[in-house]
């Protein structure tokens, strides 16, 4: 089936070449970073994790979001998702690949990465994160490929694939729970030290993942004659709506706990992110923007006229995706480092080299997604 990705219109090839161009630029920038060291990024002694890990956290969520298609279709027999479940699984593959790339570019000694396997450390959450992410990648590759291939051959999927599908559902929950556990078990970072972190991560994942999927489905309808079906699209909007409501409810609770208790440890980071702290406020506009468009989008998702409007729908999806990208993919991780354990404020600004590497990993994810979706379209539309 892979050969189907070698056939396409000029727009397809133009897009592929553009992505490869961005990836090459990123690769060059990574070589520069590998030689100099991670000092070529905006990270510092106080803010020791930056965009790489922040984006990693966000895209683990996007990968977990695939389960919101698998669950209704396979467990609850929601036939309308028949065409797009595979899209969810393939999106998970692309997202996990991005996550692994983000980790590798963030390591100070990437050639030693296998030490995590050579010296297994069950008391470290990073060890478990590595395991669950890689197994999830494998699960989605196997499930996606086998199911699609069966459709390609007009044959029913083999019975044993059911076991993998059933495992993948709790496994999707686990990847984002373990990622949350990286943060919520650290005693020195009060902004992260909350039991609601895993539920909040999952809620934002189940909004962001399906939102991205919806945008891509609408694009494919326009450029590739691939129609997911109105019923599927509308069900996705329902899922996004509920997930977004839960997410903002949890965020509201965080604000309540911090400000009502008036505990400095919890408050100061929210102060820094949303209001500025001691004159430091480089994230305030972004965070406020993120909250505004996120809540606005959530409200729109609850209004039937908005959901069914073909112009508004993609805009709403972009709004919720960008909102959560900023909230989880920037504010959350950076906030944990401000104030520092010694109560200093060091701000973080990414460097151009760093942004180029981030962009190239996005391009790599889009590349994998494009190739896989190209194959899906070819099979579903029964191209020769």
């Amino acid at each position, binding site marked *: 089936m892979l050969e189907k990705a070698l056939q396409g219109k000029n727009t397809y090839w133009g897009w592929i070449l553009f992505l490869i161009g961005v990836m090459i630029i990123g690769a060059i920038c990574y070589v520069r970073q590998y030689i*100099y060291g991670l000092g070529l990024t905006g990270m*510092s*002694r106080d803010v*020791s994790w930056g965009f790489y890990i922040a984006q990693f956290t966000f895209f683990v969520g996007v990968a977990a979001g695939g389960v919101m298609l698998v669950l209704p279709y396979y467990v609850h027999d929601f036939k309308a998702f028949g065409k797009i479940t595979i899209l969810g699984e393939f999106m998970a593959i692309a997202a996990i690949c991005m996550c692994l790339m983000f980790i590798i570019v963030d390591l*100070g000694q990437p050639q*030693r990465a296998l030490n*995590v396997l050579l010296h297994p450390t069950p008391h470290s959450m990073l060890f478990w994160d590595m395991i669950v992410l890689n197994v999830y990648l494998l699960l989605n590759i196997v499930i996606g490929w086998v199911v699609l291939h069966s459709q390609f051959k007009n044959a029913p999927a083999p019975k044993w694939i059911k076991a993998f599908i059933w495992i993948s559902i709790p496994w999707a929950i686990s990847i984002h729970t373990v990622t949350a556990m990286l943060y919520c078990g*650290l005693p020195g970072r009060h902004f992260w030290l909350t039991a609601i972190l895993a539920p909040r991560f999952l809620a934002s994942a189940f909004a962001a993942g399906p939102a991205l999927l919806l945008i891509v489905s609408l694009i494919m309808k326009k450029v590739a004659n691939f129609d997911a079906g109105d019923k599927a699209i509308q069900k996705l909007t329902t899922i996004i709506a509920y997930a977004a409501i839960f997410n903002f409810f949890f965020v509201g609770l965080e604000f309540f706990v911090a400000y009502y208790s008036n505990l400095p440890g919890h408050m100061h980071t929210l102060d820094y992110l949303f209001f500025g702290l001691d004159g430091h406020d480089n994230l305030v506009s972004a965070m406020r923007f993120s909250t505004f468009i996120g809540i606005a989008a959530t409200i729109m998702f609850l209004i039937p006229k908005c959901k069914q409007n073909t112009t508004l729908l993609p805009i709403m999806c972009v709004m919720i995706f960008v909102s959560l990208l900023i909230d989880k993919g920037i504010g959350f991780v950076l906030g944990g*480092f401000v104030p520092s354990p010694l109560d200093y404020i060091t701000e973080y600004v990414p460097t151009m080299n760093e942004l180029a590497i981030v962009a190239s990993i996005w391009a790599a994810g889009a590349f994998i997604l494009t190739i896989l979706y190209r194959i899906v379209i070819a099979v579903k539309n029964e191209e020769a």
Partner: protein
Amino acid sequence: MDVKRRKFLKIAGISAIAGISAPTAFSSLLKGEAGASSEGGNAKAAEKSAGHGEKKRTGKQLGLVVNTRIFKEVDGLAEKCTKACHTVHNVPDFGNPKDEIKWLWKEPYEHAFPEHSNHMRSEGLNTLPILVLCNHCENPPCVRACPTKATFKNASNGIVMMDYHRCIGCRFCMAACPYGARSFNWRNPRELDANGNYKFFPNGIDAKFPTRTRGVVEKCNFCAKRLKEGKQPACVEASDSIRGRGLIFGNVNDPHSEISRVLSENFTIQRKPSAGTLPSVFYII
């Protein structure tokens, strides 16, 4: 392929994978448990006692008492200790706070003890020089976090050690440390300038000790090498002044050691005790 042969190959394949990985997984899980408990041997004893009254303490736990009064009385003593530490261990000076590496340094009271009350504090307290360093906790969150055991608690003396050969530079330990005690090598410390001199070691390198390389995390190691040579840690030696020794070092689990005597005779405070880490560094204010 013959159905029976297929079935045999499937069973053989699965048994082979199970047979190879099961004992490995089992032993590594056990080692992981044992490793965590032997490397945190003292921690286990202390863990149970944390918050529930002190239990009998076994094993050796090296610790430090910082007598801030002496550091206040003797001008420049804190800087002398920092210089001693950073010289003996080839800690580079990058000249900017972004890339900064420090093992032992001076902080004002409000930054060393941010959880202590800021409210209506005396001027004297605000200007007190506090030397901060890795606390070599009995219950170190950094050791719990490290995915490769590159940082680990040495069971024989309680030092939280760094294995620079194994560190993958993920900086999870830096996120985990509640004290900001760890530094990362954001760039190559051994960079040379146009004349072939080290840019970041203005006074050269101490040839008896290695440097580190870009991409690993480093911190105070209680001078493990000097201890083996029968010496005191560099900072402790440098803290000897006309007013007395600013730093007292020893085994806190030994009731007959000097440090135990100092701890029993003085009121000491610790950094962030609510974190449950049981630090081994104590401060006489």
